[in-house]
C-alpha cells in the first residue's frame, strides 16, 4: 500500500490540479454565501464540467474544492446578516450574528474560517490514513444507534437551554412538532397538511431558517431606523487574537471528532453535525450561559463540526460505493464518469488515483485558508454599508434565496410565517434556537426510530439487549447524563442571575 500511496503523492503534486481546486474553492465560497443556493445545487450545476474534463485529477478535486468552499461559505451570511447560506451553517447563526451586532464580525468570520480549515485538514488526514482500516467499521452504526444518539441530543438540549427551562422546552417541542408536518415517511400518509399538497413535503429548512433568524433582524433594524443610538454595530472590529483562538482550540478539536464521526455514517450530514458540535461546545464550556449571546466558541464549535464532515464522507463512498447524501451522490457520478468505480475494488485497481485525490484534498486546505482569508475583507464590507441600503438588499436576498432553494412559491409563505414566529418569539423573549434543533433532530429521531421498529420486528427484547446493545446502553445512560448536565447548567443559571442582581 505504501508504494501506491507514494505514487499517489507524486501524481497529486501538479500545478493544474491546485489551480482547479482554487477555482472550485472560490466558486464554492461564493455559492455557499448566496442564501438559498446550497452546496448540493452548486455541485449539481458544476458536475458536468468535471465530466468534460477528461482528467480525474482535475475534475474531482475541482468538485471537492466546491464542496469545501460551499460548506464554509454558508457561514458568511449567517454571521453577517443572520441568514444561513446553506443548512450546514444552521448553528453558526446562533452566536455569529450576535458577534456582528457587537462589532466583532471580523473575529467571528476569522474564527469560522480557522475552525473550518483546521477541522477540514484533520478530518481529511484521518480519511487519508484510515480509509483502508476503517472502511467496513462504519456500517456498525445503523438506525438504532442513530436513534439513540438523537434521543440523547434532544434530552441534552432540553435540560441545558439558556434562560428559563420551560420556555426552552416549549420551543423544543414546537420544533419537534413542526418536523412532523408532512408525509409520514413510513406510510406516506399526510399529517397536519390540512388537505393541501403544499405541506406534503413538510417545511423546507432554508426558508424556515431565514424566516426565524434574518427577518426578525431586519424587522428590528427597520424599527430602530437610523437612530444614532442604534445597538447594532457598523464596524467590522479587530482581528481575532491568538489568545481567543487558543481558547477555542479544544472546541475545534472536539467538533472535528464529532464531525468526522458523523461524516463516516452515511446519511446524517452537515446540519446535524453542526448542531451536535454546538451542543457539545456549550456543555463543555465554562460559560455556557453566554452561548447564543455572541460566544466565539459557539461559532468554532459549529463551523469545525460541519466542515469535518466533508472528508470522511469519502470513506463509505470510496470503499463501499455508498453515497450518504446528495453531494456524495454527485461525487459518485463524477468518479464513475472518469472510469473509476467506487467500491471495494477501487483501492486495488486505482489506488494511485484515489490516494492522489485524497492527498490533493488535504493540501487543498492550505489554499482554502489563503482564499478564505483574502475574501473576508470583501465580505465584511457588508457591515459598513449604510443601513438604508443594506436593509432592502437583505430583504431581497431573503426572498430570492428562499425561492432559489426549490423554485417553490409556497416557500415564500413559509418564510413569512416563520418570520412572524421569529419576531413574536423575540418580543416575548423566547429563544428560537431550541426550536430549530428540535425540528432537525426530531425529524431524524422519528425516521431512525421508525426504521429501528421495522428492523426489530416482534422479538424486540432480543433486538434491544443482544443485537443492539449499543443503542440500549445510550438510551439507559441518557437520564443520568441529562440529570448531570441539567444540574451543572442550573449552577450557571444561578450564577448568571446573581451576576445580574449584583
Amino acid at each position, binding site marked *: 500500500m505504501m508504494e501506491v500511496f507514494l505514487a499517489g503523492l507524486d501524481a497529486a503534486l501538479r500545478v493544474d490540479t491546485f489551480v482547479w481546486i482554487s477555482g472550485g474553492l472560490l466558486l464554492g465560497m461564493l455559492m455557499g454565501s448566496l442564501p438559498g443556493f446550497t452546496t448540493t445545487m452548486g455541485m449539481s450545476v458544476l458536475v458536468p464540467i468535471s*465530466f468534460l474534463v477528461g482528467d480525474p485529477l482535475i475534475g474531482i478535486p475541482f468538485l471537492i474544492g466546491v464542496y469545501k468552499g460551499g460548506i464554509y461559505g454558508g457561514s458568511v451570511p449567517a454571521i453577517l446578516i443572520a441568514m444561513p447560506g446553506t443548512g450546514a451553517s444552521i448553528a453558526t447563526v446562533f452566536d455569529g450574528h450576535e458577534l456582528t451586532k457587537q462589532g466583532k464580525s471580523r473575529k467571528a468570520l476569522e474564527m469560522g474560517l480557522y475552525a473550518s480549515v483546521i477541522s477540514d485538514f484533520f478530518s481529511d488526514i484521518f480519511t487519508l490514513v484510515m480509509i483502508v482500516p476503517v472502511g467496513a467499521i462504519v456500517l456498525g452504526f445503523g438506525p438504532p444507534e442513530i436513534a439513540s444518539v438523537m434521543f440523547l441530543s434532544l434530552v441534552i438540549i432540553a435540560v441545558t437551554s439558556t434562560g428559563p427551562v420551560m420556555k426552552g422546552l416549549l420551543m423544543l417541542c414546537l420544533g419537534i412538532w413542526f418536523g412532523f408536518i408532512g408525509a409520514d415517511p413510513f406510510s406516506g400518509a399526510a399529517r397536519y397538511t390540512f388537505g393541501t399538497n403544499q405541506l406534503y413535503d413538510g417545511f423546507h429548512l432554508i426558508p424556515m431558517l431565514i424566516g426565524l433568524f434574518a427577518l426578525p433582524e431586519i424587522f428590528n433594524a427597520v424599527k430602530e431606523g437610523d437612530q444614532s443610538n442604534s445597538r447594532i454595530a457598523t464596524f467590522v472590529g479587530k482581528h481575532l487574537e491568538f489568545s481567543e483562538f487558543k481558547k477555542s482550540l479544544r472546541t475545534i478539536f472536539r467538533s472535528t471528532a464529532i464531525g468526522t464521526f458523523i461524516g463516516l455514517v452515511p446519511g446524517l450530514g452537515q446540519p446535524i453535525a453542526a448542531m451536535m458540535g454546538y451542543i457539545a461546545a456549550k456543555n463543555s464550556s465554562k460559560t455556557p450561559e453566554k452561548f447564543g449571546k455572541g460566544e466565539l466558541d459557539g461559532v468554532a464549535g459549529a463551523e469545525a463540526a460541519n466542515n469535518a464532515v466533508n472528508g470522511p464522507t469519502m470513506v463509505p463512498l470510496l470503499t463501499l460505493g455508498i453515497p450518504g447524501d446528495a453531494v456524495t451522490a454527485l461525487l459518485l457520478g463524477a468518479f464513475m464518469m472518469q472510469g473509476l468505480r467506487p467500491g471495494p475494488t477501487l483501492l486495488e485497481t486505482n489506488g494511485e488515483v484515489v490516494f492522489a485525490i485524497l492527498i490533493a484534498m488535504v493540501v487543498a486546505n492550505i489554499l482554502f485558508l489563503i482564499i478564505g482569508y483574502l475574501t473576508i475583507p470583501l465580505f465584511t464590507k457588508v457591515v459598513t454599508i449604510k443601513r438604508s441600503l443594506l436593509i432592502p438588499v437583505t430583504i431581497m436576498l431573503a426572498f430570492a434565496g428562499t425561492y432559489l432553494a426549490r423554485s417553490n412559491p409556497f416557500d415564500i409563505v413559509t418564510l413569512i410565517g416563520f418570520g412572524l414566529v421569529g419576531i413574536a418569539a423575540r418580543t416575548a423573549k423566547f429563544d428560537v434556537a431550541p426550536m430549530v434543533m428540535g425540528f432537525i433532530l426530531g425529524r431524524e429521531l422519528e425516521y431512525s426510530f421508525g426504521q429501528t421498529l*421495522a428492523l426489530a420486528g416482534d422479538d424486540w427484547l432480543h433486538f434491544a439487549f443482544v443485537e443492539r446493545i449499543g443503542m440500549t446502553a445510550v438510551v439507559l445512560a441518557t437520564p443520568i447524563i441529562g440529570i448531570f448536565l441539567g444540574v451543572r447548567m442550573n449552577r450557571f443559571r444561578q450564577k448568571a442571575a446573581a451576576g445580574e442582581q449584583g
Partner: protein
Amino acid sequence: MRIYRDANFFVGIFLFLGFFSSNAVSEEQFPEKPITLIVPYAAGGSSDLNARVFASFLDDYLGQPVLIKLVPGQAGQKGTLEAVRSKPDGHTLLFTDNYRDQLHRYTFRNSAYDTNTDLVTVARVNYGAIGIIVRGDSIYETWVQLEAAAKLRPGGVTMSHSGLWVAFFVPAIQVMKDLDLQLRMVPYRGGGPAKAALLAGDVDMSMAFPSTIAADAEAGRVRILATAGSERLIPNVPSFVEIGLPPTTGFMHRVVMAPTGISEKRLMTLRKAFSRMQQEQGYQRMMNRLGENTEYLDGTAYEAVRVQQSSDYRELAGSLFSQ
C-alpha cells in the same frame, strides 16, 4: 453559473429580444429558443445525473441549449404539474419515469392532472433492470431458499428500500403480490443508505440496479439472486420470469415527455433529435460510464408500453388498497 442554467433567466432574455425581432416565427424554426427540461427529482440523484448527461449532448441535435430546471417535491408531482401546465410548444419538456408517470396516479390520487391525457412521450432515454440482492455471506444462496424462508415466517425477512413508491419499493411490492410473500420493509433515505443497511447485515435482502453493485458482486460482498426481465442478465442468475414474476416487473424506464397539445411536427423534431443523439458514441460512452445503458425507445413505441403499465399498476394498486 446558476443564472446561466436558470431557465427563467433565458426565457426572460428571449422574451425581451422577441420584441425586437420579427413576430412571425415560422414553424420550421423550432426550437427557436432554449428548451427547458423539468426534472422533478432532488439534486444529486441518479435521475439528475442522467438528465445532465443527455442534456449536454442534446444541444447539438436541437441547435438550442437544453436547460435543466430541478423542481423536486411531492414525490415528483410538483414538477409534473409544472410541465403539464406549461405552454405545449415543445420548449418545455419533462424528465420522468414509469412509476411517476403511471403508478403514482393510483398511489397519490392527484386530481390536478392526468398523465395519460396531459403528457405524450418524446423518447425513452434508457432503463434500469432491478436485481434482488443479499449479502455475500448470507445464508440464502438462491432465491428459492429466500422465498422459502419468507413463506415460512411471514414478515420474518427484512428488506431495505430507498423510499416509498419508487425504484426498489415498487418491484418489492410486486414480488410480494405475485409470489404471495410478506417481507418486512425498512425505508432508507436513498439507494446508498439502503445498500449500506444490507452490507451492515441490518436487513436480509435489498434491491439494486446491477450496475450500482457490480464492484461489490465481484468482490463477493453482495450476491445477486435474480434480475428483472425474461432473459438472464448474469450467467447462473435466474431472471424474474424464471422465479415466477411477469416479464415487465422491476424495470425503471427513464422517459422524456412533452405536454399534450404539442404540434405533430415539433414532436417529430424532438423525437428525431433524441434518436440521432443516442447513436453518438460520446453519449453512449458517458452513459455507460455512469453505469446506465442507452436502450433508446422511440416515443410511439413507448406509448404502447405505457398502456400495458397502466393496466398492470391499476391491478397492483387495486390489490393493495382494497385490503
